[in-house]
């Protein structure tokens, strides 16, 4: 009889938890709907601020925001970066995926021909403080600069021997691998759209009005 339901049945015991979950879930959905636009604007402003760091020579006032179709058939936001003199310097593509603790959002800088990674920036992460959150540090992010964008990156625990190898953060292998996997997935998804090497990506659907830097 040890498996008998509690007195009054499960529902009588747990109804408050169920009702609260629904009420709180609705509340959170409302908050998210209300604030998500504002949060996205903040992220976009931050993206423009770090463009010169991600694409050397890039000018944030000369950046075009595009919507292109990725290999998965969905629209992907993409930033086409120009120098102050108007020459095409590269691309910045937002990427995101699951990390060790929570979602990680990244910005990946690419050269104009789409063949080389020029920079990496972490927009949002909630990795373990003191271990995984070192993915935001310059020391880790620099390990990605200059890597080929054409082949998947591999995370290794020793000094990298091949061009596409990235040394993991010690104590944060999963966070390091998550970042590499997110970069790989985003590059694979957009390879066709920007891999043509020209100045105009294929599959462009719509050009958003040029954003003024904040």
């Amino acid at each position: 009889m040890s498996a008998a339901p509690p007195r009054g049945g499960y529902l009588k015991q747990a109804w408050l938890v169920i009702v609260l979950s629904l009420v709180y879930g609705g509340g959170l959905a409302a908050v998210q709907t209300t604030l998500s636009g504002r949060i996205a604007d903040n992220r976009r402003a931050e993206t423009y601020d770090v463009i010169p760091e991600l694409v050397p020579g890039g000018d944030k006032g000369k950046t075009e925001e595009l919507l292109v179709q990725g290999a998965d058939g969905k629209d992907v936001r993409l930033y086409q970066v120009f120098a102050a003199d108007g020459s095409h310097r590269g691309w910045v593509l937002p990427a995101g995926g699951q990390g060790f603790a929570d979602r990680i959002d990244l910005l990946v800088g690419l050269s104009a021909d789409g063949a080389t990674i020029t920079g990496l920036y972490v927009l949002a992460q909630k990795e373990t403080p003191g271990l995984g959150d070192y993915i935001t540090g310059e020391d880790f992010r620099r390990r990605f600069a200059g890597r080929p964008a054409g082949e998947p990156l591999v995370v290794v625990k020793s000094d990298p021997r091949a061009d596409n190898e990235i040394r993991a953060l010690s104590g944060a292998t999963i966070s390091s691998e998550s970042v590499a996997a997110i970069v790989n997935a985003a590059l694979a998804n957009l390879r066709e759209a920007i891999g043509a090497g020209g100045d105009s990506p294929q599959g462009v659907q719509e050009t958003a009005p040029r954003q003024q830097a904040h």
Partner: protein
Amino acid sequence: MPSDQPTALERFINGILPENPIYRQLLGMCPVLAVTNGMKPAMTMAAATAFVLICANVMVSLIRGLLKPHLRILVFTLTIATFVTIADRLLAAYVYDMSKQLGPYVPLIIVNCIIISRCEICASKQGAGVAIADAFGMSLGFALALASIATVREILGSGTWLGLPVLPAGWPGWGIMVLPPGAFLTLGLLLGMAEWASQRRAAVKRQGGGTR
């Protein structure tokens, strides 16, 4: 309401100094050590914690008649987690820089023992008025404690307070005060001073009582 429970005013005053969550109860050490390298992150954390504590205390107090004893911690955690998520989104929307700087420490408010202990000790037993007073007192006590540590660390470590320069430009800035060891050193010294002061006061009171 049982008559032996403290009143709203007592709850409020207790939270500030006599039962200060940091200096007297030693609760919530994670944010105390992690976000006190400057006044701005410390005060943002104090505000976010206050928001969660006040909302959770009121909510728990309102539903206290419906709580099942063996499910109460689950309900507390659910309530706290909801308000923490709201606080996290509000910070990301309105103080984005601080939200980035605090990073994972905002979601970690969920496991801040101060909040769950107030739900357990006060809000699940007393009315909403007392619960609000309790939450305000504890939040104020928490904010004061964070401010005291952050003041020492920011002035010695960076020569600034709330980002404004307060020491001469030649101040070298004690790097260790900005780093984690500075948090432990400052907390230890301030805790020692608080303990010393309270023992002295108790001793004075004892002597005063003896001569009467």
